[in-house]
């Protein structure tokens, strides 16, 4: 039926393209909106909506805890959800390299379908391009998501206020170190895995109980340090983080120490930062810890007026220093 590797003419728009859509994408993504195969999807949605888009490229395609497919679904679902929205619909565009193993494509599509089902979002429109060998690295995926805003005013980066508490939903750096270790063939004393997960349900529960939440954001590329700097800048406040309260898997901490990396700058794909009025801290932590993706939730800091736009780290010794944004990539040291 299908040759074992993707041929360039599969992207021509003819019969080969239709077979690919039917046997791979419709097979796994099927729903009444997508099944129509019209040029555009018709969606029923009311009230203000949140919309976000992201393109995904990762080496290797598969890693402990996830793959490029789960990233492409959960990443966009999370971006939409961070605005306090319930993610509903996704578009999905693939750029595929000629010669890609069909088995690899199907594995990715299958895990996308599973992630979408778990997040209760539907893929309602899509596109596929096949480009000559070498023009892309195996698979690039773009997804765009939209969702209904649940709370008004919705959580946004500029709403952090002095006195607010800063929470995270779990351990930091797992995804970033997992990708690096898989890529470089490193192993540690215990296995580590990406935290890749959709946080839509957790956020819905949080907002239902605590609609007063000021900021929600997922600390992806650049890690917790970068995300907090963005928020401190947008809100014009200082964020003080107490280093020893930031949850870090001991295996990740040991791996980072060995490689000269800082887990606060490593990417997460299934965690959120939540900033809210201090009096709601315990309630929010309880809700997070009851959820499968928030078991290690912790309060890590406080918002104040001291150094507006800055993130200050209180070290375990009690010293204070700047926790700046990352300049470029983290590099292992020379000596």
């Amino acid at each position: 039926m299908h040759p074992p590797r993707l041929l360039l003419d599969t992207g021509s728009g003819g019969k080969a393209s239709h077979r690919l859509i039917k046997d791979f994408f419709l097979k796994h993504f099927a729903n009444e909106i997508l099944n129509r195969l019209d040029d555009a999807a018709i969606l029923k949605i009311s009230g203000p909506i949140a919309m976000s888009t992201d393109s995904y490229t990762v080496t290797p395609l598969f890693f402990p805890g996830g793959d490029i497919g789960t990233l492409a679904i959960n990443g966009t679902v999370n971006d939409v959800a961070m605005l306090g929205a319930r993610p509903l619909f996704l578009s999905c565009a693939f750029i595929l390299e000629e010669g890609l193993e069909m088995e690899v494509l199907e594995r990715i599509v299958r895990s996308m379908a599973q992630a979408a089902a778990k997040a209760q979002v539907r893929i309602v429109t899509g596109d596929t391009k096949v480009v000559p060998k070498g023009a892309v690295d195996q698979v690039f995926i773009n997804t765009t998501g939209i969702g209904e805003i649940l709370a008004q005013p919705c959580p946004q980066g500029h709403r952090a206020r002095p006195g607010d508490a800063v929470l995270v939903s779990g351990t930091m750096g797992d995804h970033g170190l997992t990708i690096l270790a898989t890529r470089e063939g490193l192993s540690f004393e215990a296995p580590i895995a990406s935290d890749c997960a959709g946080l839509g349900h957790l956020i819905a529960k949080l907002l239902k109980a605590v609609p007063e939440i000021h900021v929600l954001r997922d600390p992806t590329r650049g890690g917790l340090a970068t995300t907090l700097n963005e928020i401190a800048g947008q809100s014009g406040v200082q964020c003080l983080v107490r280093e020893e309260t930031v949850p870090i898997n001991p295996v990740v901490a040991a791996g980072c120490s060995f490689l000269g990396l800082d887990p606060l700058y490593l990417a997460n794909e299934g965690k959120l930062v939540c900033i809210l009025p201090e009096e709601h801290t315990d309630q929010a932590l309880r809700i997070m810890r009851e959820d499968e993706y928030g078991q290690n939730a912790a309060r890590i800091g406080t918002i104040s007026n001291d150094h507006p736009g800055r993130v200050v780290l209180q070290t375990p010794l009690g010293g204070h220093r700047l926790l700046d944004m990352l300049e470029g990539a983290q590099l292992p040291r020379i000596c």
Partner: protein
Amino acid sequence: MNSINPLTGFKDPVLCRNLLDKIHAELGAPLSFMEVCGTHTVAIFQSGLRSLLPRDLTQVSGPGCPVCVTHEGEVAAFLELAKKDNVVIATFGDLMRVPGPRGRNLNIAQAEGARVEVVYSAFDALILAQKHPDSKVVFLGVGFETTAPTVAATIKAAAAQGIENLLLFSMHKLVPPALAALLTDPEVNVDSLILPGHVSTIIGLEPYRFIADQYGVPAVITGFEPLDILQALLLIMTQIKGKQPRVVNQYSRVVAEQGNPRAREIMSEVFEPSDALWRGLGRIPQSGLALQGEYARFDALRLLDVRVEELPPLPGCHCGEVLKGKVRPNECPLFGKACVPANPVGPCMVSTEGSCAAYYKYSL
């Protein structure tokens, strides 16, 4: 005796607090210390120690970051090497942005067509040379006694395997001659030295003896955890109080009295001491390493006919004074304005272990 968890034991907050209290209580007159190694500079900032030490205990960051001490003339020379036909430059990532004359760097050279590969070790350069048998792969050798042995071992391996297209531009530098130059300089005024732990694993204690014997300056070989640094400062204070300057090994769990004779043997088989140019310090006799004997055939400068010229410092840049501890990074007029990590003017802002970059990144 209880064993110490190497990950957490040497940063134990309670033990650190005890030592800090002791330092605060016992520090009488103002005291300055120079940490020679960039890893110490970063450790002092990163752990928050800097904000906890007494005001009268002044930290001066010395010339211990290999990227920072790379001379303008050396940068100009490797940019020249990158222009040569059929040359692939293999380099540590940190050197990519180090500015040379007129702000040029390897990133710019690469955009203009030079072939540049970032490697993580000298052995990666050897593999690169095997992969490109028709090109000359020039490895940019920077670093102190810590890095030089593995580079020497790589050159030995290349010689043994008959890989003749791997070349080395040796900008390696030796720590003790630079310390001698600093201590002789009348403008440099430091009361004590925190000596580099990693370099000392190779050279041991002996090469530092002159610091106390000739210059009467206390010096402590120090590990990189907060407790190591605090203990070293207390050891210095004890010596100053007792007026008995010595070279002490605080980092004895890693540094042997004799260092690593095997590493030194490989180093001296491949290299011989030579005069070297240091940014900010100028020419220091016998402070560099040049390929010697049969290994001289791997010398990139000789084979590709490039010379290191003694160029003037970059205009406005105070990195030279910073490296001598004469000017603090934030006292340089360019600091944080024209010179930032994203667009560094001087090398102390380029390297993550440079003192300007550490000030910029960690200072409140």
